[in-house]
C-alpha cells in the first residue's frame, strides 16, 4: 500500500510541473507587454519601463523566469493581481470558501438524490419508474446549466418570489467573517433571519450546480447496482430469506458503491467547470466568477494563479480518489 501511494504521488509531480509550465507559458503567449499592462492607462517612460522589466524579472531568460515562478510557488507566492494589487493566493483563499460551500452543498444534493434514485431504478429494472428516472437523468445530463439557472430564476424568483436572484446573503445582514462559510457564519452571528437568508440564497445555485453530478451519479449507481444484483452472493442472501431492503440496501449497495465513489470523486472537475457558469449567473462571489472576471479584465497573474490552484485542487482530489480506490480494492494496488 505504501509503495502504491508513493508511485501515485511520484506520477503526480511531473504532471504538476507540467501544469505549472502550462499556466506559466499561458501568460507569456498573450499579446502585449506585461509591464505596459501593469502600468495601465498612464503609460511609463522608457527608463521606468526598463526598471520595471528588471524588477519583475521579465528581462531574464524564459527558463530562469520559470524557475523563479516555481520557487515562488513553493513559498505560496503566485504574484500580485493587476486589478486589486493583492497577492493572488490571498485573493483566491478569500473567495474559495464561497465556491467550496456551494460545491459541497451541490455534491450532497447530488448524492442524497442520486444514489437512492439509481438504486430504486435498478431494483425495478424496465418498469415505467426505471424508465422515467433514467429519462430524467439523461435530461439532467444534457442540461445546459447556464440556461437551467436562468429558468429557475424566472420561476422561483420572478413568478413565485420564493428565492432571491443573486448573491450569498441579504444586504440587511452584516457580521464578521469567521469561517468564510456563509451558513456557519450566519449561525454564529446569532442574528435573527440571517441563516434563513443564507439558505434561501444557496438553494437555486445548489440545484443548478448539482444537476449534472446528480444525473451522472444516478446513472452510475443504477448500472453498478444492476451488475451487483446479478452476483451469486446476492442470490444467496435472498435465498437465506433476508428482507429485500436488507439485501439491496446493505449487501448489494456496499459493493455497488465502489465505482460510484470514483464517479463522485471525478465530479470535482465538473463542479469547478460548473462553478464558473453557476457563479456567473447568480453573482456568487466565488473562485469561478473571479476567474471569468479576471479573464475579461485581462488580469493575467490572477488567471495564471487561479488556473494553477484549481488544477492543483482537481489533481489532489483525483489522487485522493485513486488512493481510496486502492484502499478498498486490493486488485488495483497490486497491478504493476
Amino acid at each position, binding site marked *: 500500500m505504501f509503495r502504491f501511494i508513493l508511485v501515485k504521488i511520484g506520477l503526480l509531480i511531473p504532471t504538476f510541473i507540467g501544469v505549472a509550465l502550462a499556466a506559466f507559458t499561458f501568460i507569456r503567449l498573450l499579446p502585449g507587454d506585461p509591464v505596459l499592462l501593469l502600468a495601465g492607462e498612464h503609460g511609463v517612460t522608457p527608463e521606468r519601463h526598463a526598471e520595471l522589466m528588471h524588477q519583475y524579472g521579465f528581462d531574464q531568460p524564459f527558463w530562469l523566469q520559470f524557475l523563479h515562478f516555481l520557487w515562488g510557488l513553493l513559498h505560496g507566492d503566485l504574484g500580485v493581481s493587476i486589478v486589486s494589487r493583492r497577492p493572488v493566493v490571498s485573493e483566491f483563499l478569500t473567495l474559495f470558501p464561497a465556491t467550496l460551500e456551494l460545491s459541497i452543498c451541490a455534491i450532497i444534493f447530488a448524492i442524497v438524490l442520486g444514489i437512492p434514485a439509481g438504486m430504486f431504478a435498478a431494483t425495478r429494472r424496465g418498469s415505467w419508474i426505471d424508465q422515467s428516472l433514467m429519462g430524467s437523468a439523461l435530461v439532467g445530463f444534457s442540461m*445546459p446549466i447556464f440556461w437551467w439557472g436562468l429558468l429557475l430564476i424566472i420561476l422561483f424568483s420572478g413568478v413565485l418570489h420564493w428565492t432571491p436572484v443573486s448573491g450569498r446573503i441579504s444586504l440587511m445582514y452584516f457580521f464578521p467573517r469567521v469561517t468564510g462559510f456563509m451558513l456557519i457564519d450566519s449561525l454564529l452571528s446569532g442574528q435573527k433571519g440571517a441563516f434563513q437568508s443564507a439558505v434561501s440564497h444557496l438553494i437555486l445555485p445548489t440545484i443548478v450546480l448539482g444537476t449534472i453530478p446528480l444525473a451522472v451519479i444516478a446513472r452510475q449507481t443504477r448500472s453498478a447496482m444492476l451488475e451487483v444484483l446479478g452476483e451469486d452472493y446476492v442470490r444467496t442472501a435472498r435465498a437465506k430469506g433476508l428482507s429485500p431492503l436488507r439485501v439491496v440496501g446493505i449487501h448489494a449497495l456496499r459493493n455497488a458503491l465502489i465505482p460510484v465513489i470514483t464517479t463522485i470523486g471525478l465530479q470535482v472537475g465538473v463542479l469547478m467547470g460548473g462553478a*464558473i457558469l453557476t457563479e456567473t449567473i447568480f453573482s456568487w462571489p466565488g473562485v469561478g466568477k473571479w476567474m471569468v472576471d479576471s479573464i475579461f479584465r485581462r488580469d493575467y497573474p490572477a488567471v495564471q494563479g487561479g488556473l494553477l490552484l484549481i488544477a492543483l485542487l482537481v489533481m489532489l482530489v483525483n489522487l485522493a480518489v485513486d488512493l481510496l480506490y486502492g484502499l478498498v480494492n486490493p486488485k488495483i494496488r497490486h497491478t504493476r
Partner: protein
Amino acid sequence: MSEVTAEPIAADTRRTGRAALFAEFWAYFSENRGAVIGLAFFVLVCLVAIFAPLIAPHDPDNQFRDALLKPPVWQMGGEWRFLLGTDDIGRDVLSRIIFGSRYSLFVGVVVVSLALVSGILLGLIAGFVGGWIDTLIMRVMDIILAFPSLLLALALVAILGPSLTNAMIAIALVQQPHYVRLTRAAVLGEKNRDYVTAARVAGVRPLRLMFVTILPNCLAPLIVQAALSFSNAILDAAALGFLGMGAQPPTPEWGTMLAEAREFILRAWWVVTMPGLAILFTVLAINLMGDGLRDALDPKLKRS
C-alpha cells in the same frame, strides 16, 4: 507470397462482414426506442440546418422595429408573423433558432473531427511506439485533463481572442485527451493479439499495421466517445457564447442568444426559454443516440 494470396480473401470477408455487422448493429440499436427517437430528432435538426433559408419565416438579422419583444403566438399580444415571439430589437426568435442550428451542428462536427483525428493519431503513436514518446504524450494529456475543461477552453479563447473558430479549437483541444487515452488503451489491448503478430510476420509495414490492421478493431469505444463529445462540444460552445467568449453578436448562435437575452429574463421569458430548449433537445437527442450506440457496439456493457 502469402500476402498475395491472403489479400483478396481478407478483403472479401471484410466486405460481406461489414454488411452483416451493420445489420447486427442496427438490430441492437433499433431495439432501443430512445436511441431511435434521438436519431430521428438529430436527422430533423440536420435537415433544418441544411434548409434553414427555406424554412425560416424571416431573415435572422432582420429587425422589425414595430414588434419589439412580442410574445409567442399563443400568448396574449402574440402575432402569427412571429410564432415564437421576437427579441428586444425585433428579430424573430424562431428564425434565429433555425439558423442557430447551423452553428451548433457545425461546432459539433468540427470539434469532433479535430479531436478525433488528432487524438487517434497521438493515441496510435503512443500505443504503438511506446517508450519515452508514449510517456511524453500521456503526460501532456494528463496535464490537459488536470484543468476543468470549460475553464481551460475559456482561458485558451482569451489568448486566441473570442470567436466561434477559436472556441472550436479550444474545445477540440480539451476533448482530445479522451480520444488519445481510448485509442492508446485499445491499441495496447490489440497489439499482441495473434492476428496482429500474423500480419507483422507476413511483413506488413508499421503504418499499414497501425491504420489498416489495428485501428478498425479499436473503433467501437471511439464512436461512442465521438457521440458524447459531439453533445459536449455543443454545450461547451454554447457556454462560451453565453460567457461572451464564443460566437459574437449578432450571430444567432444559441448560447450567444441566451447571453443577449439575459437582461430580459423577468420581462420576456421566451427570449431566454426558446434557445435553451433548442440546446437541450439537440444535446438530449445526441446523448440518446450515444446510449444506443454504446449498447449496440459494446456487448460487454449491460443492455438497459
